[in-house]
């Protein structure tokens, strides 16, 4: 029954990767930029979640699982606004500056966010308050167990991803987003405010990332400031695995990466699980650089 258990764990971790990967893939879609700061915005989600949860618990005498909801709203808004701010300050002035400058700028923002977190919250591990998340679980298929928390994680992630998918496919802003990811100039000619659409992307991506950060914090209980880097890179691998710029691809990539990684650490060695993820990335990029669902981009001469 170890296999089923590993699958359940893998899908849960995959859901985190998918949520974060969405932020990378959306930004890459509209700006063709690897937003290295995204992982650190996600990490800030975990820290802000902790702070706002403590505040809420301070106000409400009886702590229950519902205390998480207002905290989630606060985290989502704050991190989303931070994302927009980052875009406005560090990326927008560089939109015509070529390839190298925005990458350096993104790395710079990542440095800033990480350093801020370390100086404000300290370098040691932070722990979420105990007894907030619902405990318990169900046994399925013999000895395999699904905890209530895992079910909540999966339901929340799938709801968010489904909502995002519908938003992109069905609404006017979503359509505009897809247009911008194809071509900025033509979109502008069609009356789309490109800057506004990019701001919306930087609102949604980091917003989802922030929530993911808080869920990761709640799920594992403790984390430190390197969370952004480790999860950020993994999520980025997930985005590439599914085909960068492709939103269902990011979801698929995240799930696959989570499952492969958990199976790898279960059956091969937990020490080498990160190496497995990186090797997958390298192999995919060598043999199918467009990812599983990505379209082939013709090379122009």
């Amino acid at each position, binding site marked *: 029954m170890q296999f089923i258990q590993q699958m359940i764990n893998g899908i849960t971790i995959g859901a985190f990767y998918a949520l974060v990967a969405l932020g990378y893939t959306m930004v890459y879609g509209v700006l063709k930029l690897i937003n290295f700061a995204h992982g650190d915005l996600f990490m800030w989600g975990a820290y802000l979640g902790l702070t706002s949860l403590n505040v809420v618990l301070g106000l409400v005498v009886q702590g229950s699982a519902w205390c998480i909801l207002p905290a989630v709203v606060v985290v989502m808004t704050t991190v989303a606004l931070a994302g927009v701010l980052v875009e406005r300050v560090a990326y927008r002035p560089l939109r015509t500056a070529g390839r190298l400058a925005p990458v350096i700028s993104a790395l*710079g923002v990542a440095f800033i966010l*990480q350093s801020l977190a370390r100086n404000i919250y300290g370098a040691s591990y932070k722990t979420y308050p105990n007894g907030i998340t619902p405990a318990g679980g169900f046994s399925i298929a013999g000895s395999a167990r699904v905890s209530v928390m895992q079910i909540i994680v999966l339901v929340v992630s799938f709801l968010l991803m489904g909502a995002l998918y519908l938003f992109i496919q069905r609404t006017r802003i979503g359509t505009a987003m897809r247009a911008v990811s194809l071509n900025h100039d033509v979109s502008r000619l069609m009356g789309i405010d490109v800057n506004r659409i990019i701001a919306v992307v930087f609102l949604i991506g980091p917003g989802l990332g922030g929530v993911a950060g808080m869920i990761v914090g709640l799920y594992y209980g403790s984390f430190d400031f390197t969370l952004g880097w480790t999860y950020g890179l993994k999520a980025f691998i997930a985005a590439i695995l599914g085909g960068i710029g492709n939103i269902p691809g990011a979801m698929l990539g995240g799930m696959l990466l989570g499952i492969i990684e958990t199976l790898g650490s279960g059956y091969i060695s937990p020490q080498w699980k990160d190496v497995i993820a990186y090797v997958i990335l390298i192999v995919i*990029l060598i043999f199918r650089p467009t990812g599983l669902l990505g379209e082939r981009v013709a090379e122009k001469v």
Partner: protein
Amino acid sequence: MATMENTWARLRKMNSLWWQIGLIVLAVVLPLPMSDYYRSVLWRTGLYIMLGLSLHIIVGYAGLFQLGHAAFYGLGAYTCALLNLHFNVPTLLTLPICVLVAAFFGFLITRPILHLRGDYLCIVTIAFGEVVRLALVNNIFGITGGANGLSGIARPVLFGMALRAPIYHYYLMLFFLVITIFAVQRLENSRLGRAWMYVREDEVAAEAMGIDTTRVKLLAFVLGSGWAGLAGALYAGRVTVISPDQAKFMESVILFCVVVLGGTGSIPGVFVGTLGMVTLPELSRPLKAWRDAWLGVAMVGMMIARPEGLWPSRRVRMGLRGEQNEPTLAHAIDE
């Protein structure tokens, strides 16, 4: 303002040989009145200039994004340590082997990924760097000592004297640094160097002109990696304790910034970049906690105010400032 520019132009026209001799003399004299701490800082500056120049070949000349360069620096250091600890090879004699090992790994790793460009290359190099680091942490083949690394590497011995004091290491570094600068400068104007810059500016056109782009790019990676291996070995000889931290992503990012912030494609740019990214933060120890934040602000600010770097090569500056409407990759994909 105009007179200043005139003076500057006249200084530029001065025979560059005199400049270089002057700089070397300055570098020899500079540490003499200093305390050991400042001598160590100078040594560190030299080390990073050397590493920066090795990456400069890859990023600056050939225009290839390499964000895992620290892995080769680490490989050089580990090769030196292993040869010294297990086979008692004197540290200085391991140098050529370290260069070869790092260059060989550079070849192995980059050969399959040469057809990638831009972002994809950048990500693959990050992944390779992390694989190397994790392999070192996981004590691969039981020889790398795990997360603690290796210790007890013998000091380099020169003319029967073990080099201990920082100043000796500084001069040793300076010796190799001068060779490095000379070699990189010669490369810049060589047939190969021109081919690199051609590939950087326009790969398709370069190929059409008969340049074997795969070979040229591979050479950039192999030379750059090998040189980083040399720097790693010198580091191992100086500190005698090495750990996988040397190969961590942060190091690679710092090296990348050293090359890009100073000005892509220019050797003085690497000097300026090292001063900004390594030396100044090292000297401002009280601000150490905020070091990364300050680096980040500097990186973002620099890119907005002066994307061509502080001391760019003339060719790159003309390219960046002259053509406002140069198409970006985003456009290239759109069209």
